[in-house]
């Protein structure tokens, strides 16, 4: 086991409404890399992401077996262990969803929201962190004069970057992204891609994606999920991937 | 610490849910316990079939049961075609401005206080019925049920519209594509698809009509008799409760109104169970 491993997944089985979606999946993710997961829709890519931050537990009729370990402070923790605090897990593992989901609040409040959840009272600190996160998400220039505006007034791409900023404000060590660009036009998608590359040096990223050219541009490693199993894909040009039965969107 | 706090709040929420749900049982409990002596004395069903004549020691509520049922059913009978017509106009048949206007009017009607229907009924409808039929005082089953029809229509209309709107659009597109008119679309597609919803709305309307107090109390005349025709005056269970309110714990009249309460409670339960059963089968059969 190399030192660089951040996440260990052992014998993961996942079923939803009786259907087995993940079958005995075992894999590793290395620190500060960007891994892309590809595969036909409905095959369980997003579900896999939620097993890492235990978000699937809020979904009724879902069931999971197996283990997920994450390295925090140089030491592996079983995230499904009773003694492991769920909010702590979610705060260290950020997640961004397919459709931008700003909360019904102002732009500023959206980004400050995770800090509010941790009970942070220091307003100056909050303001500093919000600004930092927005800058990391390349949104600061666009919104710094309208922080009190309703977040829903932003464009789709801006909203998605806002959601990334919101996930970044807690400085997570891992960021899960579930098709982050699929609801955006191509220009907005490009901005997000560049953003992800700038995050890579100090964050472990796992991206579910449909866009194979995108994957080939940004990923360090590509995994294909097919029939509940993980297949390593060589990094290559998009056409190679298409041969293996995937479609290009 | 946080976990304890969360648990505490959850318990608090559970507690409030338990309290509010237990009120339902508490009401029934109170009615039964306070009505118990008279129920024991004369058998519950006996009371339902006996006339009301306190001077002769008879506290049956048969006339009121019949009064309630006849006024409510008649009210729904008047209200139902009216509501179905309006609902069809709003959801399919009418031109757009008419639909929007009518829907606004119906929504507005849900906000009109019952007592106002009663008030206007006394001064407008009762004299009108009296002059029209030249019989009785105008305070009769007919007046009350006409007013009730106006009261329950919005409930029914809104529910009908709701169930019409749930008919899958693909069906409607299919009819449109073969050149069906609006009325044909309504008659041959929407109505057959939504009949369970219509039935549910009808039952809800009936429930509302059974439970109304003010209209019946104010314009049905309150005579203690089994109404022989729509021109006869009648008393409903709800009016009976309002009229016999006395503070004496011991008097049999007072206890008898709990029987009325129990009967009304049972009516309600039947209506609710009917609606729920229908809703369940509707969900199952929905495409």
């Amino acid at each position, binding site marked *: 086991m190399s030192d660089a491993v951040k996440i260990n997944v052992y014998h993961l089985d996942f079923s939803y409404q009786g259907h087995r979606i993940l079958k005995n999946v075992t894999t590793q993710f290395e620190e500060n890399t960007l891994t892309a997961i590809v595969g036909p829709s409905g095959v369980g890519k997003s579900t896999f992401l939620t097993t890492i931050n235990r*978000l699937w537990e*809020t979904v009724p009729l879902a069931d999971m077996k197996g283990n997920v370990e994450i390295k925090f402070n140089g030491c592996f923790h079983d995230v499904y262990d009773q003694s492991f605090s769920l909010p*702590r897990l*979610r705060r260290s593992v950020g*997640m961004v*969803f397919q459709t931008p989901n700003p*909360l*019904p609040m*102002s732009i*500023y409040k959206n980004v400050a929201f*995770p800090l*509010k*959840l941790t009970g942070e009272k220091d307003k100056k600190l909050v303001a500093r962190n919000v600004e930092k996160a927005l800058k990391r998400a390349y949104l600061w220039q666009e919104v710094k004069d309208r922080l009190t505006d*309703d977040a829903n007034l932003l464009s789709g791409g801006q909203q998605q970057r806002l959601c990334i900023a919101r*996930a970044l404000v*807690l400085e997570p060590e891992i960021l899960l992204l579930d098709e982050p660009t699929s609801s955006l036009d191509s220009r907005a998608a490009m901005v997000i891609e560049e953003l992800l590359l700038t995050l890579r040096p100090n964050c472990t990223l796992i991206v579910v994606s449909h866009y194979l050219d995108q994957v080939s541009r940004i990923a360090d490693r590509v995994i294909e999920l097919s029939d509940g199993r993980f297949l390593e894909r060589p990094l290559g040009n998009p056409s190679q991937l298409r041969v293996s039965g995937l479609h290009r969107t | 610490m*946080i976990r304890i*706090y*969360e648990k505490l*709040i959850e318990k608090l929420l559970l*507690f*409030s*849910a338990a309290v*509010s*749900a237990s009120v*339902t049982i*508490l*009401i029934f409990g*109170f009615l039964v316990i*306070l009505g118990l002596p008279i129920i024991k004395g004369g058998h519950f069903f006996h009371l339902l079939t006996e006339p009301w004549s306190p001077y002769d020691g008879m506290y049956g509520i048969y006339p009121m049961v019949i009064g309630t049922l006849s006024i409510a059913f008649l009210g729904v009978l008047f209200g139902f075609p*009216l509501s179905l*017509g*309006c609902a*069809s106009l709003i959801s399919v048949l*009418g031109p757009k401005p008419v639909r929007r206007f*009518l829907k606004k*009017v119906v929504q507005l009607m849900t*906000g009109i*206080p*019952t*007592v*106002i229907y009663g*008030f206007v009924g006394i001064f*407008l409808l009762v004299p009108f019925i009296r002059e029209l039929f030249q019989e009785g005082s105008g305070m009769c089953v007919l007046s009350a049920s006409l007013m009730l029809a106006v009261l329950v229509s919005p409930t029914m209309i809104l529910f009908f519209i709701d169930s019409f709107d749930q008919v899958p659009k693909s069906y409607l597109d299919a009819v449109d594509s073969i050149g069906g*008119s609006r*009325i044909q679309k309504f008659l041959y597609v929407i109505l057959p698809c939504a009949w369970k919803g219509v039935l549910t709305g009808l039952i809800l309307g009936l429930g509302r009509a059974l*439970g*109304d*107090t003010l209209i019946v109390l104010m314009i049905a005349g309150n005579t203690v008799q089994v109404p022989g025709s729509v021109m006869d005056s009648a008393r409903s269970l*709800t009016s009976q409760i*309002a009229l016999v309110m006395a503070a004496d714990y011991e008097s049999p009249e007072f206890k008898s109104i709990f029987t009325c*309460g129990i009967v*009304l*409670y049972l009516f*309600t*339960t039947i*209506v*609710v169970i009917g*609606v*729920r059963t229908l809703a369940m089968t509707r969900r199952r059969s929905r495409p």
Partner: protein
Amino acid sequence: MNRIFEKLLLCFAWASGIVLVGSIAYIVGYLIFRGFETLNLTLIFGDTKPVDALLLKRQVFEGLFPAIIGTFLLILLSVGWSVPVGLGSGIYLAEYAGKKVKRTLNLFFDILSGIPSIVVGLFGFSVALFLHKHYSENIYPCLLISSLSLAVLVLPYIVRTTQVSLENLSPEMRLTAPALGATKLQNIFYVLIPKSLSGIVSGVILAIGRCAEDTAVIMLTGVVATAGVPRSIFSNYEALPFYIYYISAQYSDPQELLRGYGAAIILLTLCVILLFCAFVIKKQLAYHVLYRI
């Protein structure tokens, strides 16, 4: 044959629309036509000076002031009782309750919402009487008892609107805050409730409307013909809907009857305004008012 039938039905639909609008226009028009001339300060304050009445220096006779204040207090108290409990129950139902518990509780609330208001009034009255006999001589039908009974009456409305607006939130919305490390409770209070607030508020407003208009409950639990402005929650009180009922049967001169029309117009206006508010709020106006920094 079929053609004629279809034509007839169409005519019938139009006719019923016209009948409905006509009858409601007639009812409201009649009320306004007969009563609008009474709409002035005398209607509300009688021969008392408005300032004295408002400062509670003088009791108003032959005016609607005590009834308006009574209705107002009644609404305030009943909503005060029912909103916390109703919200709590609604949240529990939508977010915590298991399937079986939910089914049972839903049945209870369905029945509760169907119970005729007069039966709720009877319940309130018997509870008051019970307490009077076995607990304290000082408890009798009064403002407190009325407001508690009304709270029972409107409770299912609040529970139901809270539950439904929470349940209607999209699954994505539900996942957002947990993904950021929110606990269940934080998710509920920081995201789910604010997001469904417009639905909840409009439910509360409809409940207010119900409190304002209900007559059957209060006529058994402490409303009286003459009481003045209530000084405590243990007093009797007057209320607009009861005043209308009372006048309709007992007016002794045309002047008094006219006050009844006046009261009816005021109550109608109040209820329509409340309904209107509920609509506007449902249209997400609350959104902009409530979520700025």
